[in-house]
């Protein structure tokens, strides 16, 4: 089944299909964000407590457990870090957070635009419902069963989570026109070289032989069959950068 999409309509007539992120990408982004905010809030608690009281807690001894300075300088900022993490960062990073960026997802409106502060705040207010009864069960069920994989907060704010992996710089960098090499083949060779270590031996050798046979007519099939994986890789690099081989 194809991933659900939303169309970004443009006045130039060139529309773009934005792929909607599923429960996996969402959960991955959330787990990263949760760890970041937990670690930062906890680090604040430790450091600010040590700076304020010279020890990790003021709740021992005969002092009042609700020391004003401790609440204002330690507990309050910690709560702001923990509970304000999503709304504040989403507004500052225009629909993204460090976790979402790492997971390659971003919040957009249903028309593909950057959501405003009101929509982002509303989306976060509904975490009260989405997190019910525990570990975001309501939100997760909503994401799994809705057509566009949205939680209740997204339904209320009119937002979507889309897949947004920025590969522009890398992709543009590697399409330097190579004399005699088909750009599509060059793109495939780049991709294979990038994924070389992730693929198993047989697959990468098979793919490399197929690609080299397609673009390099000076090598026969018999010769290719004899080449080692290292030789195949070197030849692909030479095809992309003939000058470096010279």
């Amino acid at each position, binding site marked *: 089944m194809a991933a659900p999409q939303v169309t970004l309509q443009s006045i130039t007539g060139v529309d773009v299909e934005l792929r909607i992120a599923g429960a996996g990408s969402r959960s991955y982004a959330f787990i990263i964000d949760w760890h970041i905010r937990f670690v930062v809030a906890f680090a604040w608690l430790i450091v600010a407590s040590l700076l304020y009281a010279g020890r990790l807690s003021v709740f021992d001894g005969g002092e009042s457990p609700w020391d004003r300075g401790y609440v204002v300088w330690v507990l309050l900022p910690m709560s702001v870090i923990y509970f304000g993490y999503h709304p504040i960062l989403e507004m500052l990073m225009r629909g993204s957070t460090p976790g979402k960026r790492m997971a390659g997802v971003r919040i957009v409106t249903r028309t593909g635009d950057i959501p405003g502060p009101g929509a982002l705040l509303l989306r976060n207010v509904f975490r009260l419902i989405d997190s019910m009864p525990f570990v975001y069960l309501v939100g997760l069920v909503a994401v799994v069963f809705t057509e566009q994989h949205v939680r209740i907060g997204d*339904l209320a704010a009119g937002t979507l989570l889309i897949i*947004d992996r920025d590969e522009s710089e890398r992709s543009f960098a590697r*399409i330097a026109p190579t004399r005699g090499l088909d750009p599509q083949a060059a793109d495939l060779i780049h991709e294979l070289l990038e994924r070389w270590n992730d693929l198993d031996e047989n697959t990468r050798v098979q793919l490399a032989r197929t690609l080299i046979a397609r673009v390099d007519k000076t090598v026969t099939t018999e010769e290719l069959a004899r080449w080692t994986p290292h030789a195949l890789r070197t030849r692909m690099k030479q095809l992309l950068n003939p000058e470096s081989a010279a």
Partner: protein
Amino acid sequence: MSAETGLQAWLASRIESWRQVTPKLDALERSRNHTAAEATQAIELYRSLGRDLSIARRILPASRVTRALEHSYTKLHAIIYRKPHDFRARLRILFREEIPDVVHELRTAIFWVTLLFVLSAGAGWWLVSSYPELISLLASEEMINGVERGKLWTEGMLNVAPSSVISIGILSNNIAVSLMAFCVGVFFGLGTFYIVSTNGLMLGAMFAFTHQHGLSGELLKFVTAHGVVELSVICLAAAAGVMLGESLIRPTHPTRRESFQHAAGKTSRLLLLCALLLVGCGFIEGYLSPNPDFPMISRVIVGFGYGIVMLGALTGHLFGRSRQNRAPVSEA
């Protein structure tokens, strides 16, 4: 010229400009105040990227280059179409126009929710007056023992924690309750009814219980300064929640999703004002309400004075809304 040579030539002619796109987009995204020349350049870049993307889709379909162009094009689209950044004007419209219009639209829901709250409070009073043992379901043992000894639980609050700490705790809790009263409206309004009725029930029950031990006057004294606005705000947030539920039961748009989104977007503006009003309540409840030095008359003045401020804010007059603008703006 063969097709492949033509393709190579096209790529060679475009590659440099594509490489410059990413830093250009980053610069455009960072800045909020663009000159006319920068705006024109951005639009020209948008057209040029659109052309390139269109060609790339034909000759390099499903390639990473096409995807990268799509990404840059999408990013530039978002930059060009983002709303103008005028925070002060936005706030002015919000408080002068939008919130009063929402309040006007919600007036029937506000009436019924308030009535439900009052009836629940009456029911709570009657239940505890008739069956005093029921108070154990609503109050903690410590509170019950205290009242039975003739001491209200609010006494000595300032000895336990400073006013600022009490205020922060109270306002956070009240904001959370109001947001919850709004959000649970998603369960077809039933969640909101539950929260309003339990809050009313508890209030009535506590008054009945303290009345049985001659402490209802003390409780009223404690509640007066902050209670007027605090209880009103809970009813306002609940009315917004009811509207959410109604949007699902009786959709105003072709689909329930659209209807829900529209209702949530509209009513959530009121929540911002509710949260601000609750901050004031928190400070009154932390500094004034538990302090026995303040006589009843000062509490009445503060309570009703703050109530008038709330009414001014809800009608927009506090923020300079003129009387001519009172009719709600009808939506196209």
